[in-house]
Each structure stands twice: as structure tokens, then as C-alpha cells.
């Protein structure tokens, strides 16, 4: 006995070591392409230029922070995300509720709602242009109600178009997440709510939404991440230099890449890294506070 136990332990340790071998290719790749260069990014953000390599503290950050283009891009991105993310959560929750109710041809509707997910942005950009042009369909439609024509993509209302495109692309994905969460709510929880004479509204807010709080968090985070990707739509529709309100962070980064200003680029990336981390952490905190009594 006393000999067997250490033997078993080393066998287990051996297996654990082997399990690290499975991780190795991915770890090496991630180290080389993400982690190590990220260290370099931090380093670049703290020196004056790649030749002199003089430590300048936070000066690069202050410069980027004060940069007018960065401020414009950051505030545009922020305003966009602030509108797009809550709308994405609410509307996809609504769609999931629609899919939960008794409607015919459910599986077809699921397919239809999910279909924009697979459509490459490049393929539908032409149609979006036709729709939102000054003489486009949306204006034709609105003029029936007596609205003036707007050149959507070259006006202060351009972000409405982009929010619409964002929702079009992402609602289906979020809807599936919510459908899965709704299906996983224990039925006895709903039975109890019924026994206690809860009305539908109460069941929805107190039982379902609370039970789904971690999914809501996930949907919010994923929507936030994809809201940073709307650059695709904007770029493919309007090119490198869009109307002022459509100039977002990716444009700023692209132009900085073009000028090879490593200091600006690195500091901007680190600032964004910090902001995204804080936002994700804040959402976690809210979710913890909101759904703490239904852990598990």
C-alpha cells in the first residue's frame, strides 16, 4: 500500500503533464501573436520613439487622449455602443419571447431571424446604399408621411443607419442565446410563480429575467464587442473618410497604422484595452448584484 500511493500520484502527475502538451501548440501561438507583442505594445506606449527609446512616462497617453481625431472617434464609438447595445439586448429578448409563444412555422422564423448572421457584409452593402441614399427607398417611404429627404450617410443621422445595420446583423445571434436561456429555466420555478398568483409581467421580470441575468450579461458583452465591429459596414459603405459622425475608432487606428506612428498606435490600443476591461468588469459587477440570489 505505502508504495502504491506515491506510484499512483506520479501516474496522475504524468497525465497532468501530458494534458499540458495538448495545450502547447495553442499556448505558443497565443504567446507569439498576442501576449508577447502586447508586451511590446506596452513598451512602445511608454517610450518617445523606437530609435531613441527614451522613457517618457504617460506622455504618449496624454497626447492620444488630447488628440482631436481620437476624441471624435472615441465619442462616436461610445455614443454608438451606448445606443446599439441596450437596443440589441431588448429587441433580441423580444424576438426570443416571440419565438417562445405559440406561433406557426416556428422553425422557419428562426431561420429567417438568424439569416443575417451568415450574410457577408460586403454582399448587402449595395442594397444598404440603395436604401439610405438621398433618393433612396427609405426616403421615398418617409416622404409619404411628408418627411424631408435626408442624405442619411452624410448627415447627423448617419448613426441611425449604422445602428439599424448593427441590429439587423446581430439580433438573430442574441435571440438564439436568449432562447437557450429561456428553455433552461426550470419549469417548477414557473409553476411556483403560477401558484403564487404572479401575473405574466411579474413572471417575466422577477423569474425569467432574473434567472437569465448571466445570459443578459453575456449578450450585452458580445453586443458590445460586435458594436466595435460595425467599422465593416461603415467602411464598406463610405470608405476611409466617412461623414464626421461615422468616424469611429477603427478609422482612427487605420489612419494611424498608415502613418506608422507606433507611439500613438500603442497608447491608443492600451487605452482601449483598459476601457473594454473596465466595461466588462462593470457589467460583471452589475450582474452579480442583480442576480446574486439565483446563483447555481
Amino acid at each position: 500500500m505505502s508504495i502504491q500511493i506515491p506510484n499512483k500520484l506520479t501516474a496522475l502527475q504524468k497525465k497532468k503533464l501530458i494534458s499540458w502538451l495538448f495545450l502547447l501548440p495553442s499556448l505558443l501561438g497565443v504567446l507569439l501573436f498576442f501576449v508577447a507583442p502586447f508586451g511590446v505594445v506596452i513598451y512602445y506606449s511608454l517610450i518617445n520613439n523606437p530609435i531613441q527609446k527614451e522613457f517618457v512616462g504617460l506622455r504618449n497617453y496624454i497626447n492620444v487622449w488630447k488628440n482631436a481625431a481620437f476624441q471624435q472617434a472615441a465619442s462616436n464609438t461610445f455614443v454608438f455602443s451606448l445606443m446599439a447595445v441596450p437596443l440589441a439586448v431588448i429587441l433580441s429578448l423580444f424576438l426570443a419571447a416571440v419565438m417562445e409563444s405559440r406561433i406557426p412555422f416556428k422553425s422557419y422564423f428562426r431561420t429567417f431571424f438568424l439569416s443575417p448572421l451568415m450574410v457577408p457584409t460586403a454582399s448587402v452593402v449595395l442594397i444598404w446604399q440603395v436604401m439610405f441614399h438621398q433618393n433612396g427607398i427609405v426616403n421615398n417611404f418617409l416622404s409619404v408621411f411628408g418627411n424631408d429627404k435626408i442624405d442619411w450617410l452624410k448627415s447627423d443621422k448617419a448613426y441611425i443607419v449604422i445602428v439599424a445595420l448593427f441590429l439587423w446583423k446581430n439580433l438573430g445571434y442574441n435571440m438564439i442565446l436568449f432562447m437557450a436561456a429561456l428553455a433552461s429555466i426550470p419549469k417548477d420555478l414557473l409553476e411556483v410563480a403560477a401558484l403564487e398568483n404572479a401575473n405574466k409581467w411579474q413572471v417575466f421580470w422577477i423569474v425569467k429575467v432574473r434567472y437569465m441575468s448571466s445570459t443578459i450579461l453575456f449578450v450585452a458583452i458580445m453586443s458590445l464587442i460586435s458594436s466595435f465591429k460595425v467599422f465593416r459596414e461603415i467602411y464598406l459603405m463610405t470608405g476611409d473618410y466617412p461623414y464626421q459622425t461615422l468616424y469611429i475608432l477603427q478609422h482612427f487606428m487605420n489612419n494611424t497604422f498608415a502613418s506608422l506612428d507606433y507611439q500613438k498606435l500603442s497608447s491608443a490600443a492600451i487605452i482601449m484595452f483598459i476601457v473594454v476591461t473596465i466595461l466588462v468588469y462593470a457589467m460583471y459587477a452589475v450582474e452579480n448584484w442583480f442576480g446574486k440570489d439565483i446563483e447555481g
Partner: protein
Amino acid sequence: MSAQVSFKNKYKKKKIRIDNFKTVLVTVAAIVFAFIFLLPTILTITNSFMSASEISANYGSIFATTEKGGKVFISKTVNLKFIPDMVSFTQYFTVLFKSPEYLFKFWNSILYVGPIVVFQLVIATLASYGFARYQGRVKNIIFFAYIIMMLMPYQVTLVPNFLVSKAIGIYGTKWAIWLPGIFSPFAVYLLTKFMRRIPTEVMEAASIDGANEWYIFSRVCFPLCKGGIASIAILVFFDYWNMVEQPLILLPDSDMHPLSVFLSKINSGEISLAFAVAVIYLIPPLLIFLYGEDYLVEGISYQGGIKG
């Protein structure tokens, strides 16, 4: 499902009428949404069957440019048509047989996306097994780092990608797109969550029978994960087929760009071709979507909740 239905029935026996009314209302809402969701895709497809003259008659005022001084007759308003006046395949014919550049860019897209999907999944399957088996503190910390990396937008990750590709001399080559794609933490994250749901006993049973780790991985774990791998492959494919940011920054030579970037650069003279090209670009994801929708839905469902 049946429990829920009976629960509903019990609760609302007297409200059948209201219930029917509600069903109609919800169905109408669903139809309206479905219409909006399908409209752009359907319009793109129907427009691709229009002749060049019909396209310019319909959308001339949007895409026509008079930069070169030529006068183009165009109508002021835009006509949106669902169905072409005359179905014409000339656009497709031109794209497929007369304009090799589009096919060339299409081939570029396949060349980038194919290897990324295959190798990202190979590496992720291995890594997920490593993460899911014998979890420990260190592994959990590393896994958390993977999540953070996955959540970072391109604006952040492209900077390290750019620096590394310059440093090791792959900037401007296909490898600059391939390698960061292959090592992306996205599939690792999803597949690890998938594998963690496999009961430990299943793998331990094989282990006690004397199977080595590779055997357990390839004969026990892998067969159980096939569905998950397929669904993640679909998601990865959609994501990279749609790529715009990476080529813009990592490939200065626009000849190497995939069709997803090139399509927007199409000049106004060839605007009638653009719809046909757009549809051709849509076909691979469309087929994958139609055949793999259930996998896709399953794969998305597995993602809910970062904590899990």
C-alpha cells in the same frame, strides 16, 4: 414543452379568445420582423438577375458618376424592384467568364478562410482537451486570459498582430492573415466549454482501463465533440469570410485582398456586376447555413454565460 403548455392551458382556460388574438398579433409581429430581416438578402439576389441597363435605370442616380465628363442619362428617383423586368444571366456570365479579377479575389477568400477554419479547429480541439482535463489554478488563470483576449476588439489585437508580423517578416504575406487567425482564442474558448460538459467519469473509465491520454482524446473525447466542432467551425467560417479589418491593415497589396474588401471598391461602371458578385460571395455561407443551421444554433446556445 408539454409541461409548459399544460401550465398555460390550466392558467388561461377562459381566455382562449384573447389567446387566439394574441397569437395572431405575435405572428404578425414575427412576419414583419422576418420581412425586414430577409429583405436585403432577397433584394440582392433578385437584383443580380437584372440586366445592366435595368440596374442603371433603377439605381443610376445613386451609383452613376460623371467624373469622366460623360453624360449619363439617369432617372432622378430610385426604383426598387423585387422582380426584374426580364430575368437575365448576363451578369453572372460576365463575372464567371469575362472578369477574372472577381474570381481571383473569390479564390483569395477561400485561400484565407479555408486554412484558418481547419487549423484553428485542430489547435483548438487539442487545447480544449488540455483545458478541460485536469483543471487547476494555473490553467484556470490562463483560460481567463484567453477569454480576455477573445473579448478584445480588433482595434486592440491588430496592433500586436501588426508588430509581430513586421518583426518576423510575414507582413504583407498570406501568413499575416493565417497565423493570427489560426491561433485565435475564440474556438478554444467555445470548445473548452463544450468539453467541460462531458462527465469526467467517461474519460476516467477509459483511463482506468489503461488507455493513454492520446487514445482518450481521439477515441473518447473527439467523437463526443464532433457536433460542437462542426458548429464552431461554422461560426469561425462566417466570421472570417466576412473579414475586412485584417486585410486592410496587414496586406498593403490590394491584389491580395479577399473579395469581402474588394467588393466595396467596385467602380460605378461595373455596378451591375456588383450584385452578381455579391450573390456569388454569398453562396458558400448560404449553403453552409442551410445545411448546418441546427449545428449553428447548438453552437451559439453553448456560448451563453461566460462564467460556465
